[in-house]
């Protein structure tokens, strides 16, 4: 799907993702990890479908372009892991995280955080992807944009978002209160 014009895509998907997030939230955060993950995969599928079907309803050229691009990338990225479900009041992109303008990889093992830099700098309007692995059950929280992702040990969680608000935003783990890194959008 498009990374060139994510704001448009975001507008189209915003409602459906919000609906999906509410639906997931209703299932309950405290259900077992396995059940939650299965739910996540299903929801992600549904969300993706709704994007493709709702795009033609829009009459703008960008939307059509986005749809065409979406089809192209779908065939290319067939191996790509779908984004992990997100909670929080913010909206994550449904595009594959690997397609983001900037992808940050984080590993947390034995209490040590491994990340390329404590402050990642990106431009306003770019897309940022986060790929994280942790050896403990955790919840990643991106402040400001308010995106929450559950992390299961031994599995890779990933999400991406549109960095359309300037500022410096912290990303931390909620269980241990551990600071991972911050993203400076300018």
């Amino acid at each position, binding site marked *: 799907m498009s990374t060139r014009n994510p704001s448009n895509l975001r507008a189209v998907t*915003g409602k459906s993702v*919000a609906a999906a*997030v*509410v639906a997931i*939230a*209703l*299932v*309950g*955060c*405290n259900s077992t990890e396995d059940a939650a993950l299965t739910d996540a995969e299903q929801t992600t599928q549904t969300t993706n479908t709704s994007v493709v079907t709702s795009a033609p309803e829009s009459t703008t050229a960008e939307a059509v372009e986005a749809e065409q691009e979406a089809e192209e990338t779908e065939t290319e990225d067939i191996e790509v892991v779908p984004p992990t479900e997100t*909670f*929080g*009041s*913010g*909206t994550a992109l449904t595009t594959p995280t690997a397609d983001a303008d900037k992808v940050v990889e984080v590993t947390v093992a034995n*209490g040590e955080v491994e990340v390329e830099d*404590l*402050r990642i700098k990106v431009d306003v309007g770019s897309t940022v992807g986060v790929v994280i692995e942790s050896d403990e059950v955790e*919840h990643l*929280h991106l*402040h*400001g944009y*308010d995106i*929450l992702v559950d992390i299961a040990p031994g599995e890779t969680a990933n999400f991406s978002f549109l960095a359309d*608000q*300037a*500022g*410096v*935003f*912290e990303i*931390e783990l*909620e*269980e*241990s*209160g*551990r*600071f991972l890194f*911050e993203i*400076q959008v*300018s």
Partner: protein
Amino acid sequence: MIFAHGVGERGDLPLPLYLFAWGLGLALVISFFALGVLWTEPRLEKASEGKALASGGGLRAVSIVARTIGFALYALCLAAAFFGTNQPSQNLMPVTFYVVVWVGAQLIGGLIGDVWGLFNPIETLAKGGERFGQIIGRPVGHGPTNWGHWPATIGLLIFLFYELSHPTGARPRTLAWVIGAHAVFTLLMGMAWGADWVREHEPFTVFFAKIGAMAPLFVEDGKLRVRSPISGLARMPVRTGSVALVLTAIGGTSFDGFSESETGRDVFGSFFDWELAAWESIGLIVSIAIAIGLYAIAIAWTNSVTKIGFGRAWREFAPSLVPIAFGYAGAHYFQLFSDEVQSFFFRLSDPFGVGWNVLGVSADSRWLIGTTAVAWIQVGAMLIGHVGGVVVAHDRAVDIFPVGKSLQSQFAMLIVMVAYSSLGLLLLLTA
């Protein structure tokens, strides 16, 4: 480190900081000498009387409603902290405690009036304790009168430890036990010494009342009155420990700014959990010590010029620190407040974090304030805070010192004010 490890905040974009620092320093020097020429006799004391706005029944009704809301929210937060999700960002307690109460009561308290005093659920709780004591036939005693604000200062220090150093200080369960223990303590103190104890010793109530002393709106003899901003500081009660209380708050805010800066991240980045907490606690203490040290330099100079005694000068100029504490809080926490007050409504709609949406709030309505606007508000807060501090200190000086000495006695205070403001800009705005 992270504001309370989980409530979170976003920093600002880099500013041409040196310009602001010079501007602020210049504004302080100009206002200092302008005051020397134009402000030759004390004025704040008279202005602090203010004039009556409303009285009687209306105020009483507002007070009852506010106390009811305050106590209901307090009870709901405690319930959420004990029984809701233990994720900080999904529970009502952390955002209410650290943002709405701690930051909100300072910002609104300094700008408008002591809003914590209006809602104060702790006093309601203590009144309950007092009533219960009377019912079971236990006479209400009197607490010691010579402790001043030291108990409140120690309480504030404990709060700052949980806010800035404790490894899980933002976890709902941690807060549940700490605030639960505080509630039990409040009930017992209410039984033993009566509800007046809260106004004299309870850390939040005492500190927010200090900040509220600079606000234009205040209540006296059951009447709502209005006065010039900061004039109320002329009659702010100063007791032993008052200076330490305000400087502890200033030191705490400074330390929060430092630990979020890139330098701070480098210093504390390699520690985790209790090891991190230990280093951060040391940092907090050092930060408070620096704030106290700077004030001590100014007071030592004042004493050397006027010979009024170090201890007396120490207390006389305590009110001039309040606008600085307010300025620091505004500069450092305004953005957090603007962003997270919205989270508060999301959390209020789902206090236990189980997926409710009682208030029907929509994620689409979330709005993050622009960083340019924030930068100006921060600089404005620092300007108001420090010019306010200079004005209050000057007013005290012309009141207690002869004309020739008053300006001279404040030279070191001026330098310290410039130091506080430059330090504040450096620590609080760079993030």
